[in-house]
């Protein structure tokens, strides 16, 4: 909200510098987002009288003007047409520096010399209207001012006005708050003899007041009021509309003036809109009313103001209709000042996507007792330009349901418990009374909020609200600080600890950690799960960012591809992140509560945390991926996971170079390893490089790692020599190298370790078979093995291998 300092000074004495005031406002939570200095730099501008206006030959857009600024005649070339001989206008003479730093110099145009510039309001930064050359009186009305742009928090509707901000300042600075001039009804005839008012639905409209004003003359507002509006960021329109806006800015109460002649029966009623009704609002949009909304908690209700013929005039508290607008010929005005239910306004305003200065205030809560004060202020302001206006006696005031001001109990010690400081009773009383709370009793205090403070709740919540006000006005910076301690030690969870080990290991293996988008396109999704059920965002920023990812593979391949285009494709990239499965197809959809009051049972997507790595360095392929997995598993202490090739690889993976990672024993799938399908690489990048891929389900990995940590028993190696023996077997199709290694390992107690060192396929071998060669290490904890011990053990292994159909290769 933009508030001129001069306006604040109407309410409270402020001698502080702009910097000091900014500090005070910030510290009150009325954060100053900008300070604009108005009228600065106008010291050089003088008032001049127009003596002569002549055409310049060959120019139809500029004229030669002779002015007198007190030092004799000056010739000025000027493009404005809206002045005449005898007018007084602002003149920036040669040498003057205008706001923004523009310096006036002599200029030759069309063969004549211009000795200065006649200024429009825009050049002087006085208003947004660039055309009108301000005459003398307007120029004299200029006073330097400072406009604070203050951000008002959502829970402070009371502060969304000049008086509200002044009230906080007055309380903080210990000064008196002045009240504005208010008019009184001056007509003896009662309003009821002329106009009508009613509320059909008191839950939507809590109060409706209607004032009748006769003898209205619509004309421009006086310059100082117009300037106030301009400085506050609103456009002056006419004295009636301006007065309404000024009252809203000053006191926080939106009002709505109607042309009485255009309101049937001169009657205003507030009621629920009925389905089928429409309204063309002042912004020219025709709106269907009482349509059920899509938003959660939206009842589809609208509160409308209707006339005596039950015709809809406007959306109450949000925007009026064009039909009953004030026009230049208006002579009688009905002024509506009302209270509308905040939540209803919020819902209507959201549903119609229609926000106005009025709805912004009503949805947060306007003081229900303010309506007639605002009317009185409206009349006082209108009188400045329209002294003949008459306000009829006893304005109509219909009551609906308004919130009652809560009373909160503040007990002995409450403040100290909440703030860690016992604020003195005097300070508490001074602060609360300054904010117009009523304080009675002495420990416990009974505190009643002013009607403007609709943010203050009842009970414990209300107590917190009052404590915040005391803390805020006392000053957060004056409150103590204490670092609490507690016996429980800080710690990471097991999962977090393991994730850190995993991340470190992956990075140590040469992977660059990436952050790829969670939201992708349908096409991205279909690359991996063609036509599959997907979790979709209702309101994406772009269609390509509408679907929650099922995998990080697409994002990583694309990210790798971008780097490859820059010649930086020799890189491995990986990510640890969440992927999502639609609850309809999830193994374990997450069940939770939702909806208004948490009354709905909801099935949410399954979220899986995974590690995905794409290996794009030269020579990287499925083998590198396997080696990367083995290194990772070894580092995490996982030994019982095997690599099982399979032919039904998921889309996106190479069909004949992909394997699953399976935990032996449980058959749990830890993830997969292999290569990215060349077609996926072609679809997402401009290269055809082989990309290795490793993808691990962290849920399973965490369990395996934690198990490994639990029974990590370290053995001391034997001191006796080790005998190394190489064994090569011809192995039938379907026998896994790791299974044969396992058989060899367990065939004899003397085997310390078995390592595959060669795989050989050739036409010399029987069809479908291959040769697997292992290094075997024999040792004993008890003695040095003799040659015959080793030979016997070797024979045992050869025999054991036959169980898998493996024959020693001769």
């Amino acid at each position: 909200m933009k508030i001129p300092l001069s306006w604040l000074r109407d309410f409270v004495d402020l001698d502080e510098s702009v910097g000091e005031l900014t500090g005070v406002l910030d510290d009150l939570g009325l954060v100053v987002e900008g300070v604009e200095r108005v009228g600065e730099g106008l010291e050089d501008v003088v008032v001049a009288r127009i003596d002569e206006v002549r055409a310049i030959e060959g120019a139809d857009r500029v004229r030669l003007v002779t002015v007198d600024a007190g030092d004799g005649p000056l010739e000025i070339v000027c493009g404005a047409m809206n002045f005449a001989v005898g007018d007084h206008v602002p003149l920036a003479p040669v040498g003057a520096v205008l706001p923004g730093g523009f310096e006036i110099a002599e200029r030759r145009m069309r063969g004549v010399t211009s000795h200065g510039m006649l200024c429009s309001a825009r050049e002087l930064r006085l208003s947004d209207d660039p055309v009108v050359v301000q005459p003398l009186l307007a120029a004299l009305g200029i006073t330097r001012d400072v406009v604070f742009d203050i951000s008002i928090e959502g829970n402070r509707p009371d502060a969304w006005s000049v008086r509200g901000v002044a009230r906080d300042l007055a309380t903080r600075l210990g000064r008196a708050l002045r009240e504005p001039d208010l008019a009184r009804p001056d007509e003896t005839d009662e309003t009821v003899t002329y106009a009508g008012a009613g509320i059909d639905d008191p839950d939507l409209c809590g109060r409706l007041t209607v004032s009748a004003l006769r003898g209205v003359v619509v004309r421009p507002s006086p310059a100082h009021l117009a300037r106030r509006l301009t400085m506050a960021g609103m456009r002056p329109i006419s004295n009636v509309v301006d007065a309404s806006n000024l009252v809203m800015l000053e006191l926080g109460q939106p009002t709505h003036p109607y042309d009485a002649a255009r309101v049937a029966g001169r009657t205003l009623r507030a009621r629920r809109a009925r389905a089928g009704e429409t309204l063309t609002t002042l912004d020219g949009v025709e709106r269907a009313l009482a349509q059920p909304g899509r938003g959660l908690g939206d009842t589809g209700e609208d509160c409308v103001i209707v006339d005596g013929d039950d015709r809809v005039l406007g959306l109450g508290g949000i925007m009026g209709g064009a039909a009953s607008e004030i026009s230049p010929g208006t002579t009688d005005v009905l002024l509506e000042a009302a209270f509308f239910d905040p939540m209803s306004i919020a819902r209507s305003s959201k549903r119609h996507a229609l926000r106005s200065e009025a709805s912004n205030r009503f949805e947060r809560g306007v003081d229900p007792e303010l309506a007639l004060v605002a009317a009185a202020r409206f009349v006082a302001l209108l009188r400045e330009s329209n002294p003949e206006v008459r306000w009829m006696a006893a304005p109509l005031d219909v009551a609906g349901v308004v919130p009652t001001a809560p009373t909160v109990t503040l007990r002995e010690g409450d403040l100290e418990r909440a703030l860690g400081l016992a604020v003195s009773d005097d300070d508490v009383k001074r602060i609360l009374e300054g904010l117009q709370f009523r304080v009675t009793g002495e420990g416990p205090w009974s505190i009643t909020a002013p009607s403007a403070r609709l943010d203050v709740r009842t009970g414990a919540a209300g107590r917190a609200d009052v404590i915040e006000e005391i803390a805020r006005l006392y000053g957060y910076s004056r409150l103590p600080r204490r670092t609490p301690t507690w016996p429980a030690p800080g710690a990471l969870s097991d999962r977090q600890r393991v994730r850190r080990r995993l991340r470190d290991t992956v990075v140590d293996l040469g992977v660059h950690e990436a952050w790829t988008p969670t939201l992708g396109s349908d096409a991205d999704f279909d690359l991996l799960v063609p036509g599959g059920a997907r979790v979709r965002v209702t309101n994406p920023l772009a269609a390509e960012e509408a679907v929650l990812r099922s995998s990080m593979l697409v994002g990583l391949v694309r990210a790798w591809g971008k780097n490859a285009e820059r010649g930086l494709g020799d890189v491995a990239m990986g990510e640890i992140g969440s992927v999502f499965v639609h609850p309809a197809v999830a193994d374990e959809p997450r069940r939770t509560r939702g909806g208004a009051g948490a009354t709905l049972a909801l099935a949410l997507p399954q979220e899986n945390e995974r590690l995905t790595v794409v290996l794009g360095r030269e020579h990287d392929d499925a083998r590198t991926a396997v080696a990367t997995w083995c290194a990772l598993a070894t580092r995490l202490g996982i030994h019982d996971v095997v690599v099982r090739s399979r032919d039904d690889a998921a889309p996106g993976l190479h069909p004949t170079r992909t394997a699953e990672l399976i935990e032996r024993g449980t058959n749990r799938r830890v993830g997969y390893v292999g290569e990215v399908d060349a077609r996926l690489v072609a679809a997402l990048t401009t290269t055809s490089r082989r990309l290795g891929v490793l993808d691990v389900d962290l849920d399973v990995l965490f369990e395996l790692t934690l198990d490994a940590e639990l029974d990590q028993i370290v053995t001391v190696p034997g001191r006796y020599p080790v005998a190394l023996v190489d064994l090569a077997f011809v192995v039938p199709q379907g026998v896994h190298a790791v299974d044969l290694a396992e058989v060899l390992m367990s065939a004899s107690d003397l085997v310390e370790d078995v390592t595959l060192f060669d795989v050989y396929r050739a036409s010399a071998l029987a069809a479908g078979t291959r040769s697997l060669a292992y290094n075997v290490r024999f040792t004993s904890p008890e003695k040095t093995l003799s040659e015959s011990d080793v030979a016997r053990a070797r024979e045992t292994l050869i025999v054991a291998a036959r169980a898998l159909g493996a024959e020693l290769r001769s």
Partner: protein
Amino acid sequence: MTTSPLAELSTHVADLISRVHLATTLADLQADEPFLIGKRSVLSSLQKSLGALAPEERKAAGAQLQEARRVVEEAFATHRATLERSARSAALEADRLDLGDVVLAQVHAPVAVGHPGIVAATQRQLEDVFVAMGFRVSEGPEVESDWYNFEALNIPPAHPARGMWDTFYVDLGEPETVVLRTHTSPTQIHLMERAVADDSLPIHSVMPGRCYRRDTPDARHLAAFHQIEGLVVDRGISFADLAGVIETFTHAYFGADISSRLRPAYFPFTEPSAEFEITCTICRGDGCRTCSHTGWIELGGCGMLDPAVLEAVGIDGDEWSGFAFGFGIDRCAQMRHQIADMRALIENDVRFLRQFS
């Protein structure tokens, strides 16, 4: 009457189709393409001969020829697809690798240096500071119901305060009941509910995680971002403890010469609420462009848990009190490493990633 140029059309078509099927490799088929369906096909020469016909005959003949061309082209396309499929199977078969047979000693991977992500690394540094201060670290899901993301946090449906978060709604259940979490605060609700259920209060926890807001990305904002929040629920916790924790953290993470201050603010889930600012890390408080010459920059929000939140999770506010705070992890990274444009974090440019060790 002269013989129609199309008299032999069906024979031509049959001939062309059989020639299509003669090709046994994609290369053969491609080489034959001009003669089968291209410019040098018999169909193309027939097309030219139609010019000699009378206009009414030409129309009918044209349609006939069009149909013949369609039939041949379809056969061509089908056969090409078949050849492509078998070429791919052959290639895949030639490429076949039993990954169970990989001999680790034969895999030669380069000695390469990897780099942790800046955000993950920053998150870890922040976690470490808080763990040292006695906090545990908790996590929660990214898709939440409106109850956990809003209502339990004292932001009822249709409340104007929901406008403070530009929310992505997820297309599940009733409209606006499922969201991408706009903050990590729903994890606070889960934590408190769990603590009440297993009678395990107090809570001293921080909650890092990814959140989403429907904001067009710019130099300072991303639609997906990371936040870390803290939650303390204990006996005798006051605003002074909150201010002290913020100050301790600020010194520990940003350095001894950086301090914090609190300024009144509004959050529906805390009361009293505050924004917390820290000494500008660029100018160290002297005033510069980054801090708009105030010497302070805003880091996050905090406050005492609102009684309405305690009530929503069933915690007795007479016995327990607490505070919460939260701020952006990416923002911390941006400030600490002076990253000019936040969008670099999601571009995954190796030239950016490899600077960070």
